């Protein structure tokens, strides 16, 4: 079969990181080709290579058999390659018509409104979409907004559509409709690169599946040659589960008991839905799940950043769901946030000032209304040497530190108050191996002192290595617990995609 787009041996590095390493991939006319991989496997980078946002360091790219290189997304779009991003590029206050018009090429200053309206309406009718051209975008559901993005590309005669996790934001019904449209497009000979974490969808829609792992394309399988288990295994890897590294010293005392918790996001959807979880003293409880299934809401509800709409959180026997009881308890919860740069630090302040962000009111760091600069400086010196933070010259803003060192600053701060509970979100994401190992050690050491940890991570290796138990989340619910020493990656993978219920530990 002649390929529409083909890439060979693509390699792309960023300073200090190999994002893509020898990736080959192709998509034929009328084919739906799925890209599968964990976060950080290189999917986004590969997409950005397709659309010309990134230029590969080496490797070849062919369009219809001819070598090409795209200089920009505009360039690739003019050659018929279009992408629907996870975050839509729409003007909320404008109408559907205006948004689509904005995306079109060569619209004259004085344009024939009717002509364009008819063109758009024709597409809408062809695919049986329910979309009113005159409605303002902000009034539309996420699913309908996605239609707009699709129509934009179709009006520009794209032959290849790249859909970056299009179903992540859709309801099951909307997903069904999207799939219908995708099949129609396929019949018209359009090619589609589909990205999804959800195994059921991948099985349903894909003609071919390519699995990316750690920047390499490790397998391409045709329909009929893959099933859920093989894909889960390929995606997560077949290496041996790392050895269990720490002694069991878990007590059976439950330190945090989350009962039927619901948390809504700004759009009113449930990020956490009837979620229950029990955390034991001195335990490292791993939370596995595809990103966006409620992990962040869980962490934010526990650390007081988000209001709980239903359910209860008990610390021992005390209900800390609402009221002031929580705020005092929260001080005993350490939190390593997901997005360390955007909420973990004050980037313009130096290391010393960042280290006292949570404890600046302590009598230790103040003299009346004044700060005790020398205590603050001593604290910084001690933390910098204990956590081996490479902080640059004294007084330099934290934003100049590397990601690993910023993470160490956050961890040094969070663990300095002897917390009872640590909620860690993706604590080693984007860190080099040395820093990641160091952070693992800190968490395990903490557990040795009786600190309980909720470890939310996407790297199964990390979870399997550190956790005493693993809880699996899917769509804001607890799927179940597994024992890291008895489970398989396949089992966790299936639970992560909502396929398999668990066994209780």
């Amino acid at each position, binding site marked *: 079969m002649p390929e529409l787009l083909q890439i060979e041996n693509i390699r792309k590095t960023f300073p200090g990181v190999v994002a893509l390493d020898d990736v080959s991939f192709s998509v034929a006319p009328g084919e739906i080709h799925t890209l599968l991989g964990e976060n950080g496997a290189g999917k986004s980078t590969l997409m950005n290579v397709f659309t010309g946002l990134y*230029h*590969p*360091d*080496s*490797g*070849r790219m062919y369009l219809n058999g001819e070598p090409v*290189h795209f200089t920009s997304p505009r360039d690739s779009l003019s050659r018929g390659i279009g992408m629907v991003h996870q975050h839509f590029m729409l003007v909320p206050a404008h109408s559907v018509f205006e948004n689509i018009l904005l995306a079109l090429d060569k619209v004259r200053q004085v344009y024939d409104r009717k002509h364009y309206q008819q063109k758009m309406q024709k597409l809408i009718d062809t695919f049986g979409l329910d979309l009113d051209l005159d409605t303002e975008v902000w009034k539309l559901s996420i699913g309908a907004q996605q239609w707009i993005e699709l129509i934009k590309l179709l009006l520009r005669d794209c032959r290849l559509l790249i859909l970056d996790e299009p179903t992540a934001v859709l309801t099951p019904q909307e997903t069904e409709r999207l799939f219908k449209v995708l099949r129609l497009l396929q019949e018209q000979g359009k090619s589609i690169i589909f990205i999804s974490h959800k195994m059921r969808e991948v099985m349903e829609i894909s003609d071919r599946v390519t699995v990316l792992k750690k920047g390499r394309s490790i397998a391409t399988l045709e329909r009929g040659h893959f099933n859920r288990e093989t894909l889960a295994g390929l995606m997560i890897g077949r290496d041996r589960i790392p050895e269990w590294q720490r002694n069991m010293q878990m007590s059976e005392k439950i330190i945090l008991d989350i009962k039927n918790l619901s948390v809504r996001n700004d759009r009113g959807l449930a990020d956490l839905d009837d979620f229950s979880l029990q955390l034991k003293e001195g335990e490292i409880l791993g939370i596995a799940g595809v990103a966006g299934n409620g992990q962040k809401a869980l962490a934010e509800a526990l*650390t*007081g*950043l988000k209001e709980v709409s239903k359910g209860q959180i008990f610390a021992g026997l005390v209900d800390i769901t609402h009221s002031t009881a929580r*705020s005092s308890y*929260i*001080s005993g919860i350490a*939190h390593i*946030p997901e997005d360390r740069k*955007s*909420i*973990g*630090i*004050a*980037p*313009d*302040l130096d290391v010393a*000032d960042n280290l006292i*962000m*949570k404890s*600046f*009111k302590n009598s230790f760091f*103040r003299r009346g*209304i*004044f*700060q005790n*600069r020398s205590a603050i400086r001593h604290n910084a010196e001690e933390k910098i040497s204990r956590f081996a933070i490479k902080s640059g010259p004294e007084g*330099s803003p934290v934003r*100049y530190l590397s990601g690993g060192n910023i993470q160490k600053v956050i961890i040094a701060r969070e663990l300095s108050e002897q917390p009872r509970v640590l909620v860690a979100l993706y604590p080693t994401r984007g860190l080099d191996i040395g820093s990641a190992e160091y952070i693992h050690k800190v968490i395990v050491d903490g557990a040795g002192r009786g600190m309980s940890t909720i470890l939310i991570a996407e790297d199964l290796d990390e979870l399997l290595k550190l956790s005493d138990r693993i809880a699996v989340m899917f769509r804001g619910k607890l799927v179940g617990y597994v024992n890291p020493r008895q489970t398989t990656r396949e089992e966790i993978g299936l639970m992560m995609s909502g396929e398999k219920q668990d066994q209780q530990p």
Partner: protein
Amino acid sequence: MKLVIERRDTSSPLLRFGAPVVSIVIALFFAGALLLLAGVSPLEAYREILYEAVGSLYGLSETLVKATPLILSGLAVSLAFRMQIWNIGAEGQIYMGAMGATWVALFSGMENHWLLMVGMFSAAFICGGLWAGVAGLLRARWSVNEVIVTLMMNYIAILFINYLIYGPWRDPQGFNFPLTAQFAEAARFANFFDTRLHSGFLLALGCALILYLFMERTIWGYQIKVIGSNPQAARYAGMRTGASVFWVLFLSGAIAGIAGFSEVAGLQYRLQHGLSPGYGYTAIIIAWLARRSALGVVIVSLLMGILLVGGDSLQMLWQLPIAFVYAFQGLILFFLLGSDFFIQYRLKLVKGIHHG
């Protein structure tokens, strides 16, 4: 080959200090060209400006007099800037502060000098603070943009003062001029060296020192810095950002209010039209150029004072139009702000990128 703009990771102290100096030199060069066109020798003109502004006791005192309200309102604006709050309303807050001080001076019935001073100060502080506090409350509670609110409230303040001086507060002996009565001696600042220089200047320096200590040494200043640097991180660390927004705007307005107090008590001795010829707006530029530091505000305000006083001499000695003075000040500010860009960014030539 392509010219691209790139953000600097760090800027060296030499650059941070040198760039403004270079930009002033460039501005003087361009202004010199204008002077030549007007038939005036630039060197002579510059010497005259400098002499007028700092070369005599009178000139120096006038420069400091001009700098006084600029320092205070500059501090007010820069305090809010530290928290990424844009107080465009210092002008209105100056007027409201002046109003508060005037009320105490004229209508409180107090006669003791120190009692009056404290009363006028407090009234100015509270009036200016509450005026800005409205924007603070709106911003904290309902996320209303403080730029719009503070700006719009300038007009309200100025027009309200107009109402007072045309109406209820008009001096009965003032021949129908829109002015209040003059303050009694007890309600005035002391003057120094037989010039117009008054204690307001010391008050301004004191405020700069207090604000410096407040920002750099107290736990409140620390919170303001954290919130200004990253409000999300502040919330995550358990700080109450809403309350801080209100109090910072209140304090900012209060300091601008003190500028109003200092003008009526030290210079004009009454509430009148044109009390502030735009000090509150100049304060925004000052705060920007001073880059958050209280000391910087003092230095830049003095520089602005020199420009204002020296500019006057251009008018008087060479009969240059006032527009020329504005052009001269504009050039200097333009290049100073331009240098700011080069401190933060650099221009770089890149060669075309080859693809494999």
